[in-house]
């Protein structure tokens, strides 16, 4: 079965006064129909720019290059801006962190939902309205026909995010890119929204790219995980593999950093990753993580490391063998 989206060797470059910033450096991954790929990493790792590059929505001045951006049967690299605009919101939909900035405050919810469909499909407005009501009910909004007449500012944050999801679904997209969709929401609302997203993905057989920094969200909703660090994927695999046997020292470090109720004890120190992300201006020498890695040795600072596949769909980017990496994780956990 071919993947829904196949990204190969995606680069983003931004020329700055100080040199060329390379925030995404050779990212490759695939998303399958009905599956969720989670791209996880800290701020500045390039996860959001990766998604914007796929949509060709990069900020002004940024350049993208890739060997392939296969989507369905076509290659997104070959499409011009008009064809891309036909695709956005239609075949591929995006959900952002702050729904207030993505909804137009001057139009009603109903107007915006209907427009999302009318822009791409030749249907009657009544039909569009019917679909809007159907989808609002689908995302758990009661009294949908009345909601259609409301403006975005009349809704709470959780409701707005539900409206955003409904809007993303208007054209029945094949792929949804959700960039930190629940970061601005309260925990109870976050759980509800993620629950909904998972159910809708199953029902509509969509592929989902979920971009987040929250390992808890990743664990509960993703099928596959790609961990990004300094513009590169440092580890990828199934969600069970990543959490049961993280290989890259960065992934292992991240897992030790987060407090887990019932596991981390009060008064005990959490793990931490000392140091800072290297500057992404110009070329990097050696492994990007070597300056913060407790297992780094001489070769790490000079040799560039490739993403090595150890099993189908399981890869990591480290000079150490997978066995050595797993052993390191056990030793760190024992301490």
């Amino acid at each position, binding site marked *: 079965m071919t993947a829904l989206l196949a990204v190969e060797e995606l680069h983003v470059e931004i020329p700055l006064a100080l040199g060329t910033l390379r925030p995404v450096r050779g990212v490759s991954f695939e998303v399958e129909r009905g599956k969720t790929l989670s791209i996880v990493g800290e701020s500045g790792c390039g996860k959001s720019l990766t998604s914007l590059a796929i949509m060709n929505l990069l900020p002004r001045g940024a350049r993208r290059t890739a060997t392939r951006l296969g989507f369905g049967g076509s290659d997104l690299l070959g499409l011009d801006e008009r064809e891309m605009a036909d695709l956005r919101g239609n075949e591929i939909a995006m959900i952002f962190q702050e729904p207030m900035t993505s909804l137009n405050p001057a139009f009603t919810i109903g107007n915006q939902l209907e427009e999302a469909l009318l822009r791409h499909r030749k249907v009657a407005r009544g039909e569009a309205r019917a679909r809007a009501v159907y989808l609002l009910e689908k995302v758990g909004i009661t009294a949908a026909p009345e909601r259609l007449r409301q403006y975005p500012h009349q809704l*709470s944050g*959780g409701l707005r995010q539900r409206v955003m999801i409904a809007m993303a679904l208007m054209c029945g997209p094949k792929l949804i890119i959700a960039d930190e969709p629940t970061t601005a929401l309260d*925990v109870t609302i976050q759980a509800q929204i993620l*629950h909904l997203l998972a159910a809708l993905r199953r029902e509509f057989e969509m592929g989902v790219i979920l971009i987040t920094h929250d390992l808890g969200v990743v664990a509960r909703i993703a099928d596959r995980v790609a961990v990004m660090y300094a513009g590169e994927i440092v580890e990828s695999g199934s969600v069970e593999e990543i959490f049961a046997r993280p290989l890259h020292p960065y992934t292992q470090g991240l897992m030790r950093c987060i407090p887990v109720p019932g596991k981390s004890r009060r008064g005990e120190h959490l*793990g931490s990753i000392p140091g800072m992300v290297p500057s992404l201006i110009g070329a990097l020498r050696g492994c990007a993580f070597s300056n913060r890695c407790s297992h780094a040795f001489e070769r790490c600072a000079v040799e560039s490391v490739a993403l090595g596949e150890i099993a189908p769909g399981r890869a990591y980017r480290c000079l150490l063998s997978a066995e050595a990496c797993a052993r390191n994780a056990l030793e760190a956990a024992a301490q």
Partner: protein
Amino acid sequence: MTPPVLEIREVERRFWVSGGAFKATRALSAVAGVSLAVRRGEVLGLVGESGCGKTTLARMMLGLLQPTSGTILFGGEPIEKLDRAGLARRVQPVFQDPYSSLNPRKSIGSIIGLPLRVHGLGTRSEWRPRIEEMMDRVGLARRFYRSYPSQLSGGQRQRVAIARALIMRPEVVICDEPTSALDVSVQSQILNLLQDLQRDFNLTYVVISHNLAVVEHLATRVAVMYLGRIVEENETTALFRTPRHPYTQALLASVLTPEPGLGVPDTHLGIAFPNPLEPPSGCPFHPRCPHAIPLCAAQAPERHRFDGAIAECHLYDDIGQNSGKPMI
């Protein structure tokens, strides 16, 4: 017995909100009758959704807002009896966003030393060594003394904010979402630092957070707020083991621990956070509560005390109190 280092007695805070051009102004009770006592060396976690009043409560504890009614006492002394310097020596804040909590036009040394200058503590020549000592203590390199906030990373800025809060050696530090603007790897460093400082200086913390994992990690006691009221309060381990109030139960169920395969729980909470201008009748949680009974809409629940714990819920009126477990 010494009085608690911080005590809040039936504090209420109302804001007047204009209802529109032709409507009268209406009262919004951001904090509606909160009582709390924090003992020296305790870490009180304050959790709740946005809009539940936890930030308003924090601003009142800092003396930045006056309560509409009720009193706040530090070591038995009412807050209004304390002068500026006295209050600053008792309580200091650490805010959420290290980008807006530091004046961008001031050097790090002058930000940390601000309390010393304002209250004229010690002589000018003593300030620098004291500031540098505090920088060492929070893990900031001394070379940042003359740097400006824009030259520092988020984690380093939060260390500056902590140093500024601690230089007066306050008794209580109010941490309002101290790590939620930080990256995961930086968050753990700041949490470790807060824990070390608490032990070394015998500090008392009030930690406000929506991140229950952070609260569980730091706090000795936890108070759960909903719509301006504390609906449950208990010792941390007990609260996480046996949450009594249905809202606490929903909150805990919503915590997504990094355990694959468990999926996302359905909290059955309903979506509508109530409009605080028109609070629901009876128990403020009843419209969302999966266990609501007719009584809940009619009458506000009383404060039920268990050994060391408090819960405001009708489910404990008779059966619950006897069994010590919710009837659900």
